[in-house]
């Protein structure tokens, strides 16, 4: 206090006002938001920009420690597209994203409709499904890797028992099936979250709409098409874009089930990017692939923000 008095009343007053604002004014709010924002900018915002920068630089073991590296222009992008695996990975990413999302959404929606019926224990039993959501991805991958095993896996036994297949399918080592092995595991992993969000949307539809439609003689299918689907439009938009984002974030299943093999037939963009950086130590290509993926994620999140905009504003 003495120091502040000596430096003059003006500075002391400023200091006091600053402290008071921190304790009892807008400074308090700025401090609370600011601390989180500084952390997020340092740990997510700047790395993101750095990633884009690296995709235009030559990065090797000698320049890894420096920020300013030789400029590469679009050479990294050209190199990535010319990789022999590029189109295979693009196709796998498309299959993985499209069928994971489709499977999660269709099964999740069916389950959500079923659990929207009024019966005892509905919400408790529905809650059990969410257990997949809290499990470590690698453990889920390990369990599915064992279920899908070609020679002693239980899925082959069940499918043979049901008469769907005649001989064992080598899910993980057959190039025709390897990506589907991961898709199956990912559908299992993601469908509970889809179902939960869709259930929330279903619960928000006013009951009397259905009663009015029933009085007018609409059957169940007509009620679904004319009431449920239109009323669920923004929920469905949000669920689908969250599904796209979640599928592009999925990584743990790949090292656990197929490691991208055999011969890259189950490698998707996110795993390829990691392999480039951390198995081949080609950080420039790793960064380039992840920038490409980022564009996809941004498109998905624009759709997501648009479909939930009124809820954010509310």
């Amino acid at each position, binding site marked *: 206090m003495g120091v502040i008095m000596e430096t003059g009343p003006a500075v002391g007053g400023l200091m006091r006002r600053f402290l008071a604002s921190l304790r009892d004014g807008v400074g308090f709010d700025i401090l609370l938001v600011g601390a989180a924002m500084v952390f997020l900018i340092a740990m997510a915002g700047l790395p993101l920009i750095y990633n884009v920068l690296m995709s235009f630089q030559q990065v090797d073991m000698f320049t890894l420690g420096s920020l300013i590296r030789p400029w590469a222009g679009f050479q990294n992008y050209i190199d990535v597209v010319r990789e022999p695996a590029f189109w295979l990975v693009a196709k796998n990413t498309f299959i993985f994203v499209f069928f994971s999302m489709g499977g999660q959404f269709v099964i999740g929606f069916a389950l959500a409709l079923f659990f929207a019926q009024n019966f005892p224990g509905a919400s408790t039993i529905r809650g059990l499904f969410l257990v997949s959501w809290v499990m470590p991805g690698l*453990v889920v991958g390990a369990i599915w890797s064992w279920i899908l095993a070609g020679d002693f896996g239980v899925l082959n036994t069940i499918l043979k028992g049901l008469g769907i297949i005649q001989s064992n399918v080598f899910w993980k080592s057959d190039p025709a099936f390897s990506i589907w092995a991961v898709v199956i595991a990912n559908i299992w992993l993601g469908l509970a979250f889809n179902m939960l969000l869709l259930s929330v949307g279903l619960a928000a539809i006013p009951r009397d709409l259905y009663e009015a439609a029933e009085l007018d003689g609409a059957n169940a299918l007509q009620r679904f098409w004319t009431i449920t689907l239109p009323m669920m439009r923004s929920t469905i938009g949000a669920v689908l874009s969250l599904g796209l984002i979640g599928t592009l974030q999925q990584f743990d299943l790949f090292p656990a089930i197929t490691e991208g093999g055999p011969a890259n037939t189950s490698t998707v963009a996110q795993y390829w990017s990691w392999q480039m950086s951390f198995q081949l130590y080609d950080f420039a290509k790793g960064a380039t692939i992840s920038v490409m993926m980022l564009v996809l994620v941004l498109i998905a999140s624009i759709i997501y923000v648009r479909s939930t905009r009124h809820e954010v504003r509310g």
Partner: protein
Amino acid sequence: MTRPYVPWLLVVVALALAAVYLFPLYWMYVTSFKSGSEIFANPPTFWPREIDLSIYPNVWTRRTMHVFLWNSTLIAAGVTAITVIFGTGCAYVLARYRNVWLDIGLFSVLMLQVLPASVMVTPLFVAFNQFGLLNYPRTAVVLAAAAKAMPFFVVLVRATFMTVPRELEEAALVDGNSRVGAFFSIVLPLARNGILVCAILTFMSSFGEYIYSKSIIQAPALQPASVGLSGFLGPNSTDWNAIMAYSAIYVTPILAVFVLLQRRIVSGLTSGALK
């Protein structure tokens, strides 16, 4: 007349659906109870012929699981601490006020939520390398994973703060409390349950964190349980009862917490997830 029976039929169907869905979990436990030769029985037995638990202590010591689980706990605790300390205040302000700057803030938090860890791991690794943080690999993982966990936490906790009536806080201010005082003595206690559930969710998800740990932590003594599991898991694994026993030891605590808090977790998620 048949009306009262319909709900019970639905309950049976619901239980059957849940049983099919939870079969992978059942299969994990059953496999871990089988002996090394029984897992290769053809056709597989859906109930172990004789329950053999000897693999549990075996895996625990052979795989040094106490080291891995301790590292997982440390990392998850660090991530949760950073997320709760920074995220709670941020969520509170974002729930209380609206202006252009906070809208931009909220929008960027929503955007950060979608960044895949596999995109962030390359620049984070190179940057950590430049700053020398790779010499403290667990700290580096905690920082990276906290940045990944925080946006989701902020979105969920913001929904909790929205349910705290503003009038209570204003009354406290009229009574002579400062903003700091009102925040700590009125708002935080009222939002405590929601924050606690979100903190537990953060802990559980960072307990299973894999990609940052795998990429950043090289020394086995510092790796978490997820990396430890990946050490003997691959497309050609055969050691299945050991892998399943390891998995069972790893996830049983998480499952126990989930079952205990299931109702709260589900309601916390539904209130925040779509906002």
